[in-house]
């Protein structure tokens, strides 16, 4: 057989197609045209209610409320579209352009209502409907609302219609009109929060009248989730840090429950819901959309010293009483590395209390860089804490080998000196530092921080911790040193002693190209609960400001009996 056979096969196939086409279009064409006219099955979606997000005392932080939208049905207005839009714009005093834009964006079919003006006052909506009953319909839909929007937006995130990033979401079975969580817990726990939309399936005729009812599916509500945040504490801390750049995290030391996580400046999630006035959040040079607690890394400065102290003791390079002399600076080759004061002879306890740089320069040079790296990594400073929030950023811990292979230069003594006071190449996120310092509070455990308390009445039991194997003796030495930071008359955070909370912790002034960052990370026990907290103020100038902020909010929390 040859090409002729193949040709006959092809020809046969084409004749079948031509004949079928002829049959459907020419012979049965009128029949199908009439079916086309009467074949208007349409689905009217009924939106589901999204689960609420409640704090540990059952205060709603995110919930759905009814929003009244003005909608048009394309089929009813297609002949006099502009007149109808004009009427709506005049009555409500909204921009005609935005109505047209919403229409163009929202059209999905001839009979599906399109929201042209969203979130209209209920009374106004009803009056408009009375006036133009044939042109518009009122579409009441659940809309997300955040009562403490600025206070909690970095934790909660917000929701968007899935169509905005539909290509990524459709594989998970989202429909384009559904709401999906975007950043924060709304995104992380979307599976729980999202309900399932229902709908009516009806049959309409060619003029849009309903001629048959085919079926209904009830929407299902999403699950409520309870989180570990105490919104009263969250609000107080937010008020204290509001006009500054920085972050405050408060955590239950033993369990890892995040009691408060504030990043400042913040943004108004409600504005993202209505889609108005959000441009400023993107253009603001203070980056209000950035969650500084988990999505950014900074030099840790002297808050790294407790980890250095642990390294020195565990590597048996020093005892608590090994003295180093501080003359205000350390000379290494031709370079001079400064201390922030002249401390004289210092042992480990005093060096921690005074945050003496020269002591730790010397310790660093004895330890050498790779041992410091090793210990920084042991405290998980290069790892994710795996807090249940999206887009956490990993910290970075350098090493000699890294510098040689990535930067093509040798590791110098000066690098070691910088490294040993938390400067130089190392960076960590505030949450990672909190978790590292927390290890001293809980006998050498790295605790995983978390926010989800329970879903639909079932406790999340997210408590997870690993022991990093530091002997009690070493922990006690470092703990004594960082207790002196607050309780010694010359300690760098002595102001906090006045709170009467028995705080231990470490200050940090991390040098940058601009003004220094201020840090304080510490812990205390009050009313039988252990709290760890971390305060970070970006470019604030010095650790004093972090200590002051700690003092202010802890004082208020204690006075209001919130601890």
């Amino acid at each position, binding site marked *: 057989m040859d*090409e002729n056979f*193949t040709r006959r096969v092809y020809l046969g196939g*084409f004749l079948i*197609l031509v004949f079928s*086409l002829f049959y459907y279009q020419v012979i049965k*064409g009128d029949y199908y045209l009439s079916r*086309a006219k009467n074949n208007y*099955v349409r689905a009217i979606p009924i939106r589901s209610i999204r689960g609420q997000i409640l704090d540990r005392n059952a205060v709603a932080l995110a919930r759905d409320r009814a929003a009244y939208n003005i909608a048009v049905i394309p089929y009813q207005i297609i002949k006099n579209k502009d007149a109808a839009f004009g009427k709506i714009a005049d009555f409500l005093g909204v921009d005609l352009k935005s109505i047209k834009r919403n229409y163009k964006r929202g059209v999905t*079919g001839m009979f599906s209502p399109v929201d042209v003006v969203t979130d209209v006052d209920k009374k106004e909506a009803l009056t408009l409907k009375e006036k133009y009953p044939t042109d518009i319909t009122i579409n009441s839909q659940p809309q997300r609302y955040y009562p403490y929007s600025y206070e909690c937006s970095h934790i909660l995130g917000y929701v968007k219609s899935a169509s905005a990033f539909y290509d990524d979401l459709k594989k998970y079975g989202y429909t384009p009109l559904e709401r999906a969580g975007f950043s924060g817990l709304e995104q992380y726990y979307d599976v729980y929060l999202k309900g399932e939309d229902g709908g009516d*399936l009806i049959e309409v005729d060619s003029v849009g009248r309903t001629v048959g009812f085919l079926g209904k599916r009830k929407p299902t509500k999403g699950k409520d989730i309870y989180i570990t945040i105490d919104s009263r504490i969250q609000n107080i801390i937010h008020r204290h840090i509001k006009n500054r750049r920085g972050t405050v995290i408060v955590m239950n030391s033993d369990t890892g429950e995040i009691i408060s996580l504030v990043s400042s400046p913040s943004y108004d999630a409600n504005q993202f819901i209505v889609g108005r006035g959000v441009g400023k959040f993107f253009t603001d040079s203070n980056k209000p959309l950035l969650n500084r607690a988990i999505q950014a890394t900074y030099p840790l400065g002297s808050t790294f010293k407790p980890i250095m102290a642990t390294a020195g003791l565990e590597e048996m390079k020093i005892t608590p009483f090994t003295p180093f002399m501080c003359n205000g600076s350390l000379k290494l080759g031709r370079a001079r590395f400064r201390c922030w004061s002249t401390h004289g002879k210092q042992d480990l306890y005093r060096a921690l209390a005074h945050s003496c740089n020269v002591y730790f320069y010397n310790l660093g040079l004895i330890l050498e860089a790779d041992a410091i790296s090793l210990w920084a990594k042991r405290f998980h400073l290069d790892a994710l804490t795996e807090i249940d929030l999206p887009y956490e950023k990993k910290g970075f811990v350098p090493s000699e080998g890294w510098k040689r292979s990535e930067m093509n230069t040798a590791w110098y003594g000066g690098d070691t000196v910088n490294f040993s006071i938390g400067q130089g190449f190392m960076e960590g996120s505030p949450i990672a530092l909190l978790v590292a310092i927390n290890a001293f509070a809980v006998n050498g455990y790295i605790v995983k921080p978390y926010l989800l308390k329970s879903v639909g009445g079932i406790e999340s039991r997210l408590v997870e911790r690993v022991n990093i194997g530091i002997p009690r003796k070493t922990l006690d030495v470092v703990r004594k040193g960082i207790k002196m930071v607050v309780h010694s008359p010359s300690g760098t955070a002595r102001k906090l002693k006045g709170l009467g909370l028995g705080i231990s912790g470490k200050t940090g002034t991390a040098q940058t190209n601009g003004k220094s960052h201020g840090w304080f990370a510490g812990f205390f026990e009050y009313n039988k609960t252990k709290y760890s907290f971390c305060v970070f103020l970006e470019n604030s100038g010095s650790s004093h400001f972090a200590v002051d902020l700690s003092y202010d909010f802890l004082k208020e929390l204690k006075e209001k009996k919130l601890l």
Partner: protein
Amino acid sequence: MIVKSINARSTLTTTKMLAGCLLVLNLLSLLSLYSSLHLAGEFKSGAILYRQIVWVVASWIFLIIFAIINYRLYYDFGYIFYGFNILLLIAVFAFGSKAMGAQRWINFIGFKFQPSELCKIAAIFVFARLFSGDRRGPLLQFLLPLGLASLMALLIFKQPDLGTSLIIVFLFFAIGISSKVSKRYFIALILAGLIAAPFAWGMLKNYQRKRLVVFVNPDVDPLGAGYTIIQSKIAIGSGRIFGKGFLSGTQNQFNFLPERHTDFIFTVVAEEWGFVGGLFLLIVYWLILYNILNIARSAKDDFARLLALGIGSLFFLHIFINIGMTLGILPVVGLPLIFMSYGGSNLLINFVLMGILINISRQA
């Protein structure tokens, strides 16, 4: 000398004809795509249209490149290419991402990549090589291609992609029957297949079975799987002789048909341009196939002849199955309409095949 010059001229007209047909199809495709992106009179998405225009331009560049590359290369590298594809298919199971319950894509440096597309070409290369030449006995010339076809079809079927695995089987027959291998083998194989058919039913996935049942009687499930077939028929039928006019297809514009810019693009043509438009499209396709048959007839060697026939049959199968599916005379299997449907990789590959055909005709 005279023979040669005639050949040169006919080669030139063949090339011109094919290029002309492709240009017409490009134009028709973009117009239909533009129309399908409308909803209730509003143009919805420019991005899809622009992306397709970029793909069209890129495809032409590839066509020219492959028209220059000597087709003997595919003889030499056919096996390696086949082996590479088998590895890719296995890789899909290991690293593939799931789309709509089927594991057909792998992400390759950010690009989504569907190995079953390339498999069709690899199959054509190895079949054309193994079936070409004189008789060498059943083992080498029948059982070996049969084994390679079965292995590939089975792996694709497991993805699961019934449509493509059937195409591999069809290509095996289309190329084999045109070769010098004894026809008795193929007849015996078909008989064996008929006996085994009831067992194959058991291997199908639920949704595949459902599609076949619904195909036989779409009214079983008018809002589920049968919906597409009914809506497609209504859209096509209501176009009648002259169509409803460009951008005026109501079924299309009211969003009754899902996937209408990809697998169901033919309904857009048939609804808006009517029987006249549908027939015109079929004639253009026929001209392409007719020219491919001519290329096969005048090919320099048996490999080139079978290669051309294989590509022609691949095109034919796509056209027949896709349009047959929109007309409700074949089950819905999810194959694009070549040169018409939205989608870059399919367009590009078909243009590459066209380039190969032009090279064969240039060397004739």
